[in-house]
């Protein structure tokens, strides 16, 4: 092979590399009527797509696309690069607050806010940049074989390893409700939770430190409690609900549950943001869609009308039914977490490693 040919080949290879490098740039969303929804993946995402998006998309002739999982860093990077192809993204409320203030998210139209008000959405769960999409709870998830008769019904009992022996599973995540649970277990009145007395929380956590097992994912969580390795976990009610429905020996205890919710936001610069806002109004005004979503996931709907569509039996499994709402200790205050997330995460890392 002569030198010229080799150089030609190298040149072609280089050029094709350059082409590949640029190919990702074109956005195909702007012109067509489409919406990309982003969720955390898995079963919940499938149900959300099927119940909360597809009926709307069919009615209005919108092409639905999806992506997963939600990734805040990716969202940030998209907005900064000006190439946003995520439309409606399910996020945690503290992210909404921080990102909204930083200007990474699209502000909601007045029409969306009016719709939320009109359909009775809890104003606490609304934001300038996001609507709530589901309510869930940090419950006491327990193994029904290990605790057939009595199981912990309060956080104080959850922390009582003598009365209820065994490992405790907690989410390795500062906003996962661990500090709130510790403080309530230590006798702090729910209305005095915030701002959190972290020293007191860590002191309470010290008493069960050697019994704590951490989980990162929902799968790990159900694996821990169903296998009996950690017969008690501070759980996401929907995960336990699903595991129970599939025949695993687990159940939710709603006593002193900590209420929480997720929001849908639209990254700034999304070409079809108007379409996304139209969907928001539709979903808030369509109780049937929310009710079906709740029935399948165990996560509560955000409007009272949707709750009313569900039978008493179905409501029993939802965090915001009248019965479970009455047992709830407090709502997680995401305003607090938006401000303190970073520093508390560091303190939590230090405490865990110590």
């Amino acid at each position: 092979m002569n030198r010229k040919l080799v150089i030609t080949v190298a040149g072609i290879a280089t050029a094709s590399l350059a082409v590949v490098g640029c190919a990702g740039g074109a956005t195909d969303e702007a012109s067509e009527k489409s919406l990309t929804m982003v969720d955390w993946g898995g079963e919940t995402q499938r149900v959300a797509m099927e119940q909360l998006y597809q009926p709307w998309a069919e009615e209005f002739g919108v092409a639905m696309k999806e992506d997963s999982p939600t990734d805040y860093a990716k969202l940030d990077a998209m907005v900064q690069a000006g190439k946003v192809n995520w439309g409606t993204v399910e996020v945690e409320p503290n992210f909404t607050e921080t990102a909204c203030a930083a200007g990474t998210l699209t502000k909601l139209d007045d029409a969306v806010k009016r719709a939320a008000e009109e359909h009775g959405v809890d104003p606490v769960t609304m934001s300038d940049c996001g609507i709530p999409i589901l309510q869930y709870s940090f419950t006491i998830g327990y193994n029904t074989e290990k605790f057939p008769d009595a199981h912990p019904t309060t956080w104080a009992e959850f922390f009582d390893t003598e009365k209820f022996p065994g490992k405790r599973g907690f989410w390795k995540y500062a906003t996962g409700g661990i500090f709130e649970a510790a403080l309530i277990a230590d006798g702090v009145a729910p209305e005095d939770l915030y701002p959190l007395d972290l020293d007191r929380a860590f002191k309470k956590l010290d008493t069960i430190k050697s019994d704590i097992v951490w989980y990162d994912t929902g799968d790990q969580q159900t694996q821990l409690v169903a296998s009996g390795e950690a017969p008690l976990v501070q759980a996401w009610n929907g995960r336990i609900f699903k595991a129970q429905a599939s025949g695993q020996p687990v159940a939710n205890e709603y006593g002193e549950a900590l209420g929480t919710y997720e929001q849908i936001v639209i990254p700034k610069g999304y070409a079809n943001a108007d379409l996304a806002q139209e969907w928001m109004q539709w979903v808030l005004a369509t109780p049937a869609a929310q009710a079906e979503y709740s029935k399948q996931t165990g996560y509560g709907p955000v409007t009272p009308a949707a709750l009313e569509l569900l039978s008493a039996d179905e409501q029993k499994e939802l965090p915001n039914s009248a019965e479970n709402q009455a047992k709830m200790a407090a709502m997680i205050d995401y305003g607090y977490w938006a401000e303190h997330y970073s520093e508390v995460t560091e303190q939590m890392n230090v405490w865990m490693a110590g």
Partner: protein
Amino acid sequence: MSTVETAAAPSTAAAPKRKYFAIDGWGALVVPLVIFLVVVFLVPLVAMLVKSFTDPEPGFGNYVAVFAEPLYMKVIMNTFYVALLVTLVTLLLAYPYAYLMTLVPPLWRNIMMVIMLIPFWTSVLVRSFALIVLLRDTGVINTMLTDIGAIDEPITMLRTFSGVVFGMVQVSLPFAVLPMYATMSGIDNRLGLAAQNLGARPSGAFWRIFVPLSVPGVAAGLLLTFIQALGYYITPALLGGPQNTMIGELIVQQVSAVLRYGFAAALATMLLVLTLVLLGVAGKFLNLEKALMRRS
């Protein structure tokens, strides 16, 4: 990985002339790779370095924050400790395995190769979950031992230091065995016979002829194992307890949850600098370049 390959390539091409940069027409074929590395490796690396000094505000703030909390250096040191230990254990297991592969008939060699590679083709996440099912208190091993009456209480293997090392060694083995085997299979076994013919005992011939000739493969395998072990975080996060946190996990936490990109960049830079320092020191004593480029 690329270090090893690019370092080896010129020596092949230039061996007769003993010159490193004797590029002929074929050398131009390297250009796409160089451009690729610059685009996907060098540019992001520089961007990260810059970010660690500029985000959220210019200055050394991120580095001050790294040192202000002892946790971070502690975790970085733990990361090096775990990586070194994993490398050592991997070496002890991989060397005999690779050696055995050169001795057995081809059929068995293929079987050994497949046994080692099948896990390699499975995702790290899946393998770690499989190990959880095996190792946990209510897992396969503990249940079996309890059922046959060997133990009364389950032995805690999950979320311990040994659990982390076990899992990481399992992931690392192919990276050590493959380069070792590649080098060993190229060693002329008549050299050992010649040594014995000249009066060496078989063990003497092994240690003084075979082992030195296998050093390039061992060095490559160790380097690969060590460098990638430094970046592990999925396996330690799943199999270890919070005491076994590796720096990769904290960096990911800062990037994807806390969103302090500048601070994450500073942590990553610390890891990079300390790794380079360590390799520099090791290079002084071990002469890595020579070990890697030596022809067997």
